[in-house]
């Protein structure tokens, strides 16, 4: 079958769709579910703009077929945002001016989220290594590293 049904959870909500087998998770999120916070930058897995969390781990939404996600738990930037205001990580980004055009930011947040969940006090080098798979064309990365450091300190309290 060139179409298939898939049932998954996105940001805590159950979702069921019948989609073309060739449809990417990124397109499902953006077009079928209206969750346009996940961005597409290259469609070959290099730029990281489409990074989301799948079963708690980062993954490139452009390299996943939507139909593969049967039974999976997907978290996008919308799911990383509290109902009111911003998360500690997001607020740290804002204070440190860690975004300019904002296009890389959702993917960057997913990657930072995974890093801080595993490493509560990353060094600058560890931060840089962790985000090396997320391209940013605007910030030169300096403030992103500062923001993640700041968030780590705040979350540790």
């Amino acid at each position, binding site marked *: 079958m060139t179409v298939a049904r898939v049932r998954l959870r996105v940001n805590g909500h159950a979702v069921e769709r019948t989609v*073309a087998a*060739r*449809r990417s998770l990124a397109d499902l999120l*953006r*077009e079928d579910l209206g*969750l*346009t*916070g*996940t*961005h*597409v*930058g*290259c*469609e*070959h897995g*290099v*730029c990281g*703009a489409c990074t989301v969390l799948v079963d708690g781990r980062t993954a490139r939404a452009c390299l996943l077929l939507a139909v593969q996600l049967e039974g999976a738990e997907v978290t*996008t*930037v*919308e799911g990383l*945002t509290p109902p009111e205001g*911003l998360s500690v990580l*997001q607020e740290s*980004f*804002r*204070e440190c*001016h860690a*975004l*300019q*055009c*904002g*296009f*890389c*930011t*959702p993917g960057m*947040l997913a990657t930072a989220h995974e890093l801080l969940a595993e490493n509560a006090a990353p060094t*600058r080098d560890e*931060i*840089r*290594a962790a*985000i*090396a*798979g*997320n*391209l*940013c*064309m*605007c*910030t*030169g*990365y*300096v*403030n*992103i*590293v500062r923001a993640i450091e700041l968030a780590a300190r705040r979350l540790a309290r």
Partner: protein
Amino acid sequence: MTGWVGRPLARKEDARLLAGRGRYLDDVCRPGQLHAAMLRSPHAHARIAGLDAREVAAIPGVHAVLTGADAAALSHPIRPLIPTAVPLDDWCLAVDRVRYAGEPVAAVAAVDRATAEDALETIRVEYEPLPAVVDPEAALRPDSPLLYPALGTNVLWHDVLAYGDVAGAFARADGVLRERFEIQRYASTPLETFGAIAEYDAGLDAYTFWTNDQRPGLTLAILADSLGVPQSRLRLITPDIGGAFGNKRRPAYLLVCALLARRAGRPVKYVEDRLENLGALMHACNGVMDVELAYRSDGTMLGLRVRDVADEGKNLISPTQHNLIKLGNIVNGYRIGAVSYEAYSVLTTKCPSGANRGIGKPFMCFAVERAVALLARRLRLDPAELRLRNYVAREEMPYTTPPGAQYDSGDYAATLRRALERFDYRGWRERQAHARAEGRLLGIGIATSVEPAGTNLASYELITGRRAASGSAEAAMVRLEPDGRVRAALGDPACGQGYETVVAQIVADELGLTPADVHVERGFDSATTPWLYLSGNYSNKFSVTDVGAVVGAARAVRDKLLRIAAHRLEAAVDDLELAEGQARVRGVPGRGLPLRELARTAYADVLGLPPGEPPGLEARHAHQNPLAQPLGADRTVRSQLVFSNAAHCCLVEIDRLTGMVRILRHVVVHDCGRELNPLIVEGMVHGSTVHGLGAALLEEFRYDANGQLLTSTFMDYLKPTAADVPDIEVDRLEHPSPFTPLGAKGVGEGGSIPAPAAVASAVEDALAELDVTVRSLPITPERVWRWLRGR
């Protein structure tokens, strides 16, 4: 009138961007929209002998197809930027000939992108390949294959511009340094690719475009001409833009969408994918520069001769742009009294060239700063000392360079000294000596630059011989709404620079409010935003021209508020001030009116207005930067208007065994005059510097002899990641411009200009024992290894 401007405020736009609630072009969905895909030429150069798209209609979900022949029948050619000896018709799709691999030849609109791509595969095109020409110097030769045989040449422009006594300077010189430099093709590649949605209203015979085009004023003119529709029946809207840096414009794509939308009777969206973006949108010109620097034995630089060949690819829409901008920056920060610039703007069968971060200045600065570094080596002078001897001094400002650029303010010597201090230059020279003794290859490089802001389009008269557009101008609107809050709009769409915040800071200062009270419209909408042909995001013009429009509009509203308040309070206008959301009598607490109350008078209770005062509290203001002048009789021109400056110090270590270059430190001291928002300014310095580091070490669009792009994905075209660059250390001086509305100057391109030269000097310094000269970029590990191996 100060308070918010100058503060490092966090940005207002960030909350939505962080939450994933930005609205970029591909997030915009118009009811019934179709998706377009483009069929692109696999050949760099070929005649189109035939094109058969008849099978497309049979594919379910396809709603329209457009061929080059259709485009020629349904639209007027896109007018080239510069006149040519014979008219060169250029439509939004190739008609009888393709001139670069990736040039669009047909387009399809379908229910989704995947279906559109399926449909493309059914289109049969018969190509008759022609020889490619990929080297710009080869393209100059009389026997070169020609992109436009009717033109008889690939040279779109060739001229020699000379200023001052060049022959005399070279005759007087104690020596002449001669070098040839090359720059590679690269591009800023914003993370969001370019795209558009076109919607046609058959009843009104009108088009609406959503697009992340950064030059709406220019694009609307081209659309009107090509579609044969007056601008009053065109509307162009920009949403959030995911970075631009000059790359975000391609009117041809909007035309394709428009023609498909008209055919299909439904809106059509086209978003380039990354391969299309890398291969076919635009590259900064690569090229070759021959430099001759005449000097006295004490290091004083007397004259500069440059021969510059700029490779434009297949670019008719903006050729010569790189040449002109190089000319405006040719002497960098130095007092060089005689300059000769021979420029070629050459066509080749490659991706069109276009604006990029720095547009030509990175190469111009690379060539000059490399020449200065080599001169220092030749004369055994310290490279900082040589520069200090030749800088235009602070006291000489405003200083006019031979081609006519006016350096308005700045202390280039102080900038360099501060950079050396922040870098701990002396300390690192000692550490370097120790490291050398241990066999480690540490290198220190310096480069300094001027950074212009605000382009005066009159400079194009140098190319075209006539003045079609000129000056630097922008328009803005400020409106105090009936509820006392403020709305503002700017004809320059933000692409990440934080205009929603900075404009709010400026307006808040003028009206005695807080930035939270001022809503700045996201982006541009030609129906509601005031705009000019000159409107758009380019040339760092925000701080030097746009702010004038914002201030002018805000002040008009302020003045009106004061007049209404004076009338209602029965006070003199001069005794009133706007502060804390009120118009009040200075020094008399209690004698004031909130702005909301004044708005009620202006919008609702209009009988309460002063006699003769019309209702409303809205002002539109267009500001023309007074520094822009027409072309001088001696062919001098202020092609850009105010100049920031910067000094970069770079520390690298080279791995002896592999040739890998690691940047250990990169220090930037910059001076962009008054910083409207220091947090945003510093971010610009970080980001622009990393662009320069990428160009220095990683990025290169490489073509084979057949015009095929070899580095066509992000796996092969290498952008700098967080693991490739150090923390950029930034310090600042502030010499405000005496000539801009707020004393601010441009900062958007800054680091991208001198950073490549700083890295090149550092690598050369690390390899000093080998007497290596870095003349081209990027500096790859293999090149370093070959130097290490010796000749």
